[in-house]
């Protein structure tokens, strides 16, 4: 491989392998500072509010929510789709970019994958609560039962969702954990506190780093990436089937699967940006999660944001072109009806705001990127709200038309789940290495300040530099 000398290195600051270890493990071996505790206490408090509202819902019933005969599901499904979507960026980074051999994924995949797992946990809370009796949740599984041999309905997209989400969660979890094993081995050898050592010893499964183990590790990662790639696409496709297979105008469209997948990746990258801008600042990891990484992620946001914009306009065109008066009404009502503010909040945040990032100076200004990433999060939440509530609130029978107003319980659960997410993420930053240390070390010889310097010198002297690590006899893998 000939490295272009113009390309930005992925690890800056001339690090040795030992320095990488020290830099990434610092949050684990040192006690958390004041800032972390403040952030932790705030998110834990918010989490408690959410748990209180959930408990209230479970004791009193779904009547505590603002749902009515016309709008039968609203905040719960909105939040469910929102959180599942957030998760998708993590899998995209850890699996799809691995298959595409994108070196820049190495330093963000661990945190992004952790985000996926926490987001799916958050997502699962909502359908669980909406069941009303979550202790009967096992009814969704195809188990022999006492109601006569009555099985679950395999023709229902809601059941497909059960399989999709549980597979997605468990596969993401083992993919993430397999990648963690070598780094946990390193943590085990680095920590000095005997209790910590014992815990990490159990978690690291006795990893020693033998060449055979690494060989198998790389093959396992590759196969898992190959499996996770269609999996992640299938999950949001199936989530979109929840709507697309119904006969509600505004839902009944074939564009939904790709539109939902693009939206999921878009929202997920919004969340990755939000988290990474803070994480790299607070944990002092700017040499690993460089401005180049941020730039690459911003470009993904522009691309997927444009796809989402294309989907919005296509939907509108088809609503008119189909000639169906109900479709046409649903869409005009979406943009100009009583929920116009939600529609235009969505459109502004998702379609217009990321386009500003075409300008390089805005893309490299982290404050601006942070604000845009928040806009993306808000916009994508509104997208789901718009699709769900505006399509339902005015259905075929005008006498049933109703507005939906969320209650404080619903707000409490929604905000509380953000608390759960950030509490889990904050714990993660202190207990596990936020960067895949081994993977970053494995690309340092190819892409670091030092490697770049060497290449630039040899380019100046006119010789063709072929990196040793990628010599032709190693091309087999």
């Amino acid at each position: 491989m000939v490295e272009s000398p113009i390309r930005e290195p992925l690890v800056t600051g001339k690090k040795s392998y030992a320095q990488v270890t020290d830099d990434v493990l610092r949050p684990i071996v040192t006690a958390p500072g004041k800032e972390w505790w403040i952030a932790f206490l705030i998110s834990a408090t918010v989490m408690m509010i959410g748990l209180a509202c959930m408990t209230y819902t479970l004791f009193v019933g779904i009547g505590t929510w603002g749902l009515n005969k016309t709008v039968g599901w609203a905040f719960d499904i909105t939040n469910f789709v929102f959180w599942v979507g957030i998760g998708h960026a993590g899998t995209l980074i850890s699996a799809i970019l691995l298959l595409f051999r994108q070196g820049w994924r190495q330093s963000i995949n661990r945190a992004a994958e952790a985000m996926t797992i926490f987001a799916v946990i958050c997502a699962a809370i909502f359908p669980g609560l909406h069941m009303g009796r979550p202790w009967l949740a096992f009814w969704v599984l195809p188990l022999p039962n006492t109601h006569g041999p009555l099985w679950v309905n395999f023709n229902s997209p809601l059941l497909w969702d059960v399989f999709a989400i549980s597979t997605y969660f468990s596969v993401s979890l083992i993919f993430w954990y397999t990648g963690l094993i070598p780094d946990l081995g390193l943590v085990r050898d680095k920590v000095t506190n005997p209790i910590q050592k014992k815990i990490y010893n159990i978690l690291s499964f006795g990893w020693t780093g033998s060449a055979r183990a690494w060989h198998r590790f790389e093959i396992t990662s590759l196969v898992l990436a190959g499996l996770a790639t269609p999996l992640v696409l299938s999950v949001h496709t199936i989530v979109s089937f929840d709507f697309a297979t119904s006969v509600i105008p505004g839902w009944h469209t074939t564009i939904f699967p790709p539109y939902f997948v693009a939206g999921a990746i878009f929202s997920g990258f919004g969340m990755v940006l939000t988290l990474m801008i803070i994480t790299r600042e607070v944990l002092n990891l700017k040499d690993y999660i460089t401005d180049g990484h941020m730039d690459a992620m911003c470009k993904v946001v522009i691309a997927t944001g444009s796809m989402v914009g294309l989907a919005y306009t296509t939907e509108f065109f088809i609503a008119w072109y189909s000639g169906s008066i109900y479709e046409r009404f649903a869409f005009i009502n979406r943009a100009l009806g009583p929920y116009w503010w939600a529609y235009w909040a969505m459109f502004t945040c998702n379609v217009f705001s990321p386009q500003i990032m075409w300008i390089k100076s805005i893309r490299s200004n982290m404050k601006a990127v942070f604000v845009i990433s928040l806009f993306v999060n808000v916009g994508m939440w509104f997208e789901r709200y718009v699709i769900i509530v505006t399509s339902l609130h005015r259905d075929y029978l005008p006498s049933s038309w109703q507005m939906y107003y969320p209650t404080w319980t619903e707000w409490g659960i929604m905000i509380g789940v953000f608390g759960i997410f950030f509490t889990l993420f904050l714990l993660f930053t202190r207990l596990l290495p936020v960067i895949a240390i081994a993977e970053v070390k494995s690309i340092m010889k190819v892409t670091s300040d030092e490697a770049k310097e060497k290449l630039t010198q040899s380019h100046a002297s006119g010789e063709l530099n072929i990196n040793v690590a990628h010599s032709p006899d190693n091309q087999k893998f």
Partner: protein
Amino acid sequence: MNTKEIYGIYDDDHVLLDAVKTIKKKGFNIKEAFTPFPVHGLDYALGIKYSRLPYVAFGFGALGTLTAILMQYYMFVMDWPVNIGGKPHFALPSFIPITFELTVLFASFSIVGAFLASNGLYPGKQAKLIDPRQTSDRFVLVIEAANSQEDIENVKSLLKNTGAITIKEQEEEVQHA
């Protein structure tokens, strides 16, 4: 005991890779190598055969496909067929999503299980390290030498010449996983 293990400890992956090639050429047996990260081309240089793990994933994936189709067929077609608007009971297209998910589930869990089993990794296992820094920034080569002073000295000088920063000898019976 007629063989003895000699450990050469290196501090750079490229030096290690060259060392492996030199040592192999001299005809010595490299029993194992320990590195803090996957060194590209090391498996090839050591002559490690390409792992059969993907076959495990494929086999179990196929089993997952079969399980899903048979399960749905049994429950929906044989055991309790429900008449839904006169549509066919064996509605293969709507069985596909669950079939796909179970295929991925079976394949993923099997390959991770096989990965852990083939490396003998399990929760709580004690790692036997040759160098305390081998998971951070040290690269270890384990070479088997005949238990004679001459052979041991040969290996040691070879390790030294190929750039090892520390050379250790096996002290007692050590088992390598």
